[in-house]
């Protein structure tokens, strides 16, 4: 697998090229973009950081799980550093002979990435305030369920 983390813009074409093959007729893609609002506040920009070696290892484990569970090839990439509104933060592509396994594997990978990969988001708001995003806090999405451990 190519590195999951990048400090450059996410290259969707290279992800698509990595999973494309003559026998794979269905490709599902998920793109996570930087949103301009969070909890009713206007987001100006944000910074992603990671526990990089673990994030790489965990992303590779998730990709292997998806490829073991469905007849797919997956590719994934997450951008770190300073991002602006509308930038692609994360991309997942899953290719299979037909669409059903591609959609299912793509959904599995993005849900597991959000739940298990050590990446953090610091949001800078239009009012000048700054906050590390905590999805487990009320109003910031669903709490993560327990993660698989060694």
């Amino acid at each position, binding site marked *: 697998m190519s590195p999951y983390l990048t400090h450059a813009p996410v290259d969707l074409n290279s992800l698509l090229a990595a999973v494309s093959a003559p026998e794979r007729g269905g490709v599902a893609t998920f793109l996570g973009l930087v949103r301009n609002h969070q909890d009713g506040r206007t987001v100006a920009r944000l910074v992603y950081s990671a526990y990089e*070696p*673990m994030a790489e290892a965990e992303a590779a484990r998730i990709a292997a799980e998806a490829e073991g569970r469905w007849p797919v090839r997956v590719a994934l990439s997450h951008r770190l550093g300073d991002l602006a509104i509308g930038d692609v933060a994360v991309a997942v592509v899953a290719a299979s002979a037909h669409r059903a396994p591609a959609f299912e594997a793509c959904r599995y990978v993005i849900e597991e990435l959000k739940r*298990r990969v*050590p990446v953090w988001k610091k949001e800078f708001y239009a009012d000048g305030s700054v906050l590390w995003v905590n999805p487990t806090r009320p109003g910031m999405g669903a709490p*993560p369920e327990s993660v698989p451990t*060694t």
Partner: protein
Amino acid sequence: MNTSSEASGQHLAVRVLLFATYAELAGRALVELTLPSPATVQDVLRRLRAALPGAEWLPDQPLAAVNRSHARLSTPVRDGDEIAFLPPLAGG
């Protein structure tokens, strides 16, 4: 490779990594700790609290990793392990 302290079965040394809001609140991203062997992640957490006075921001049961894999508080740690305490994940 065993260190002399591990060979004696008395103490083990671990590197504790902190990230994001935890690193900012602690004022550091790395804490090196020595503790009696055997030990678990829970023991490392206890020792970390002692090393970081006023660390009320550290939850009772933070997400933890040992050697770059998710771990439980009951997971044993060995000499030379890399332990990480992870703030709530927010990728994607």
